[in-house]
């Protein structure tokens, strides 16, 4: 019966082709370092799931942000775990992204024919850093506020456009409610959208081209 439904669906959707293309494709023999990409993907999923759960209670205004974070941590069942996974997951994501990148560099995986995969990867790194920067402010505690104040002012040190950049980042000359709303908006809408788009391209290319094989030391004269 199940098989019948599956066949019926496959005839119309064709998912067995997709299954074969993604899961049954052959991969060169690789070592454990090659799991770093998947590990990064896992943390991204972890961040997305816990992040979505956090938005159910989090309120992005200076009046309520701190209280809502406190509420999530202390009152909601498993709230501490959700927030903990998101918090530590953020650090893990940065570390894994960088390690993944180092693996790609050291083993020359960015070379032909995977250059475009590499470009999307660099953008993904910047997005991850952007997540870290915007997310740091959201708990609205002392380290969030002052860290972001210093961090955004560093952006303002750029010549000529610095002041403009600072105004855009903060939504005014000072760190305020506008800044919080802005960081929140970027953190939950702009960056995730960009992440999904670029990650989609990144994954598509990885599957289509296949992951690189472990390079052998060329016999040089």
């Amino acid at each position, binding site marked *: 019966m199940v098989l019948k439904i599956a066949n019926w669906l496959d005839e119309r959707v064709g998912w067995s082709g997709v299954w074969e293309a993604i899961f049954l494709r052959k991969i060169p023999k690789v070592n454990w370092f090659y799991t770093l990409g998947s590990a990064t993907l896992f943390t991204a999923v972890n961040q997305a799931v816990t992040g979505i759960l956090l938005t159910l209670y989090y309120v992005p205004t200076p009046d309520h942000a*701190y209280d809502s974070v406190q509420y999530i941590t202390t009152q909601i069942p498993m709230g501490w775990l959700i*927030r903990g996974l998101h918090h530590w997951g953020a*650090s893990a994501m940065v570390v894994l992204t960088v390690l993944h990148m180092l693996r790609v560099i050291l083993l*020359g995986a960015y070379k*032909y024919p995977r250059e475009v995969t590499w470009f999307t990867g*660099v953008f993904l790194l910047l997005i991850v850093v952007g997540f870290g920067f915007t997310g740091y402010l959201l708990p609205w505690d002392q380290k969030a506020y002052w860290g972001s104040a210093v961090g955004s002012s560093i952006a303002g040190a750029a010549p000529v456009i610095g002041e403009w950049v600072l105004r855009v980042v903060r939504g005014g000359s000072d760190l305020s409610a506008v800044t919080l709303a802005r960081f929140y908006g970027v953190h939950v809408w702009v960056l995730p959208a960009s992440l999904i788009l670029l990650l989609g391209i990144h994954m598509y290319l990885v599957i289509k081209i296949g992951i690189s094989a472990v*390079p052998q030391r060329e016999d040089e004269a």
Partner: protein
Amino acid sequence: MNKQEQKEYLEQYKRDKEKGVPFYPDILFKDAVISLVIFLALAALAYFIGTPLEERANPSDTSYTPKPEWYFLFLFQLLKYFPGELEVLAVVAIPTLAIILLFFLPFLDRNSKRHPLSRPWVTVLVLGSVVGVLFLTVQSIRETPPPSEAGQGDPVAALYTENCAVCHGGTILVPEGTNLHDIIAQGTHEGMPAWSGDLTSDEIDALAGFVLSPGGNALFKEFCSACHESSELVASDPIELKMALDEGLAYAPHADVNIPEWSDAISQQERTALLNFLVAPDGQRLFATNCAQCHGRSVSFAGEEAELRLLINQGGLHLEMPPWRETLSNDQLDALAGYVTNPSDTGDGLELFTQYCASCHGDRIPTMDDFDQAREIIASGGAHETMPVWGEVLTAEQFDALVSYTLEAAQGTPLEVGQELFAQNCTICHGDFGEGGPNPARPDDIIAPISTSEYLKTRDDHTLFQITAQGQPNFGMSPFGSAYGGPLDDDQVTALVAFIRSWEADPPVDLPPEVNTSSISLSSDEVYEQLCAQCHGPDGLGDVGPSLRDPGFRTNNTPQEIFETISNGHEATPMISWGDLLSADTIQDLTDFILALEITEAGVIPQPTPGFASFAEDVMPIFEAKCVPCHGSMGGWDGTTYDAVMTTGDNAPTVIPNDVENSILAQKIIGEQTYGAIMPPAGKMTNAEIQIILDWIAAGAPDN
């Protein structure tokens, strides 16, 4: 990588793939294991360490030491190695360059070799960067000192370590002429908080000194700290400090102390460092300690910077002292000379000094060792050194700071300008302290206070600027910004806003005052004075708006049209519609009032109503308060009686009746004199006082 190599690679890859394993289950298994390990690790961290949440954000708590997320620490640390203008390198140049390099890596490394050992350049560079970032991160964590251990034993160094070192590292390079006290107090520097809330003025001074002269701090600790606390000496009189250093054992307060001869113990260079540390080159403080006694809050000075430098540097032949032998008896001269040579003698000398000398010398007694010499100088008067030769006392850094501050102060700070503008334009409706009151434009309306903390906290500078510039026509407030036809340019509005903003720290009004809400009936001339005069001038001669006395105005406007213009306003001009605000009767009265104004020829300004009623009652008191202290019996112009005012002076007549422009008195009080300095030397009189004197001259300088 050429075509051939590309093809080879693809073939090799195909072979690798055939020898390989399927993604599911082999690879996916590995991925799942790693993901599980990561998840467990994260959950363990969340469980055992928890998720830190500090105190609620407090924007006013500047004592908090900001730290970014750990993976940004290396960048933060990098910043410390690029002080001042080089900051841009660390902030913008290096990260941008790194990202660009990273992005274009496939184009930079085009070799077909892939093994890390076959590509030593890339490998070394990347591993080098990793080591560098790790090093910076570790360094950053190590250099943030636990607050309890910061700079033990040296209070100033401790202040520095606690408050500045986190961002600035061990030393700060400061460009010459920087007013460091201001920067520390106000936090004008990017990302730097205003410290004035947390540190006392003395502490800020000590910090400024420490930053400019860390060597001085060490010297202070070595030589002075046994007896002196640093806060007791900082910002004290630089003349005293210099004397103490130069005279060594001969310096009276040091006479009984067991100290070395400073000139042997401390080199000239070190003495400068020590002085810079003790009296940090901070113009405002230097001015307050050294100049304010004689010059008041600021010196009116309109010349070039070089001129001012010379004047301060060489000290003073810039004021004439009258020959006292003409006014004082021999006994009095003796008493004065005695007092000057021995200030502890508090006989007649002190009294005489207070009476005759203090108005110029302040309580800084010009001491002299030689009685005869002192007596001679006092008796003969003339150009003598009234101002110390500051060039000998101040260090170069202090001198620069003093000059730039004096120049700046001479131009008036935005706050003072704003205050004056507020008094001229706003107090009519908003009261002296922005406390508000009955709205003259709308009978039963109360203008709410604009100086409460509530009002100021809920409106940012931009909003205040817009309100001031555009006015609030619905409430009877005309636009004041020149862009909307008002009298003030953008800078003036900004100054005004700055003044209004200055209330926020200490609001003069925190509750709306009790205001009598009974309807106010104003006569038409009162309405004119409060509302129309803002633009049409107090005499209807026009200012922003047209003259109401102009014959053309009358011929072009029928009474009906005047009535309608008042009611409906005038498009494209700042003339707002008053119809909603004033009753028809009031407007009618106002129209009659305007029609009753005497017509004057176009362009001819009628004799303004004199701002004085009588010489004896209005003008003389000003002379007595502002001029006679010096211009009494000291020679030169004499301001004690009407006759003396009109006849005396080195270039008599000082007053030319009916001719304001050529009267030396008028020139000197408004600061347009062709020779000598502005009078009074400590600063201009108020505008009202000046106007009374000018009006008096214009009216023919009568003796009434």
